[in-house]
């Protein structure tokens, strides 16, 4: 089985974010591996381990996990973290022409990489903490013409039957879905507990291959991607007045009634 996991480097969610003109200012904040993508990597690892003769991931398992990431040079750090969790190799699409790409361009690039990789399954997180669009996995399935199994709270793979089943958890409830390979799967944070990279894993990751690809390597013309090709445009971004400091009271028996007085004063009750 060949599995790909799409991983994104994002600004640390605890960092204060601001706009730099029309785009998110990424330079000034720490960057981390998108946390939901860790769940996607973990799920791929668990599937490989379950189907490996040695019950371990890695080259002897007969299955491979390739990380795919599109992002600037320093996305390397996030990719390295994924490799230290146990993925085998990575493809990193990095090109100055990609700056300012929208989700449509991102999915175009990722789909292009996936097409040439002969993968059976592609895992994604349900959402990147910076874009928060939750659309890339669905766009990938559409572009690839593959089955879409997204918002998975559980995944079961039958390698023999080339079949995958998920429980899709959304606001409408749970839908049990199934499809034949190849499929795009996105996972939520209920699905597993991502492992911490072990010391051995961190050392091994240093020797793993991260293949850099440019737009011309992929045969994508620069006019198809990047800020200029974006089909939605930010006109302006305005800072809103900050929330004023709130009132804080210590409960000494009257906390509940004081609270209700406050709500009445604010006319919400």
């Amino acid at each position, binding site marked *: 089985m060949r599995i790909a996991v799409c991983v994104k480097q994002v600004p640390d969610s605890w960092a204060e974010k*601001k706009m730099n003109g029309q785009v998110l200012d990424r330079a000034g904040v720490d960057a981390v591996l998108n946390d939901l993508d860790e769940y996607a990597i973990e799920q791929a690892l668990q599937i490989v381990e379950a189907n490996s003769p040695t019950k371990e991931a890695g080259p002897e398992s007969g299955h491979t996990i390739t990380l795919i990431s599109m992002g600037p040079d320093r996305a390397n750090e996030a990719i390295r973290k994924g490799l230290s969790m146990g993925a085998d190799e990575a493809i990193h699409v990095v090109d100055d022409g990609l700056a300012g790409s929208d989700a449509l361009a991102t999915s175009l690039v990722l789909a292009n990489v996936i097409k040439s990789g002969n993968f059976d399954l592609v895992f994604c997180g349900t959402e990147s903490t910076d874009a928060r669009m*939750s659309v890339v996995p669905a766009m990938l399935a559409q572009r690839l013409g593959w089955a879409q199994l997204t918002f998975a709270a559980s995944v079961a793979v039958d390698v023999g039957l080339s079949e995958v089943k998920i429980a899709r958890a959304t606001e409408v409830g749970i839908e049990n*879905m*199934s499809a034949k390979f190849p499929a795009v799967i996105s996972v939520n944070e209920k699905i597993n507990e991502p492992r911490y990279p072990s010391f051995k894993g961190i050392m091994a990751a240093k020797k793993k291959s991260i293949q850099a690809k440019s737009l011309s390597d992929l045969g994508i013309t620069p006019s198809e991607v990047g800020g200029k090709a974006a089909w*939605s445009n930010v*006109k302006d971004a305005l800072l809103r007045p900050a*929330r004023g400091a709130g009132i804080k009271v210590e*409960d000494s028996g009257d906390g*509940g*009634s004081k609270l209700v007085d406050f709500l009445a004063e604010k006319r919400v009750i």
Partner: protein
Amino acid sequence: MKSVLILVDGANGQVAKSTGELATFAKRIGEVIAVVFDPSLVAGLGAYAIDKVVVVGGFDATKFSPAPIAESLAQLITTKSASAVLITSSARGKEIAGRLAVISGSGIITDAIDVDADLITTQSVFGGSTSVHANVSHGTAIITLRSNAVEVIAASATPTQEDFTPTISDMAKLATVTSSQPAAKGGRPELTEASIVVSGGRGTNGDFKPVEAFADSLGAAVGASRAATDAGWYPHTHQVGQTGKTVSPQLYVACGISGAIQHRAGMQTSKLIVAINKDPEAPIFELADYGVVGDLFNVLPAATAAIAAKK
């Protein structure tokens, strides 16, 4: 006049309030065409500002999740020369919008809280600290809108009705729904629609009774933190946060919730935020307009009693 498609949401004959909100936004732009896949919802559409209802049939929309819905909408964009498609910002809604943008070669904007007659959207980002105005510059404007962002306007006339049978590709049927368990519908308001939300976290220690009693005294919806849903204390569909629902009510009450960044992501644009927490240092107090430092098992019953006394 421009025409605008809106995707109708709801179940069991009950049209979601968010559909009325989409109609309200669409009415500013042009002719409102409601696209409905579940015939049981048609009757309920009369209440909203809708000009035309298109009932899509010919395939079982419940059997294949988002893909066929996106294909149908793409075909309707062409037949109706639609300038925009408005969809509710839910997990499912955003995925349909994403596929639709790819099929129709259109730009997409998600999680808008407003859209004007010129199709300029407003989004509230970075925890409500920044307002972004944007527009779609290519193809049909595919826009998903957060619930509860506009006052619903009422119907002016009875909509006309027509049927539409789309051509669904084999690709859209690759993933099939084998069975489903619809989200349990309780007696309380829907989380994303409610004007008041009372949420409980790990601090409830599994006992949501005081949270529910306070919620009921206010006619509020009940939410939960991930700690509470992971522990099985409350259903996952009630989770508020990054990987749960995004709510923006008039009043949000966080009880026994520390205020982790992932929880804030789903509630920090609420108009008024109240926190009840034993720990005076809990980060939730940083964004609370009113914080009570105390035990929720004392504060909530007292507050519930105080509300009852006011009635």
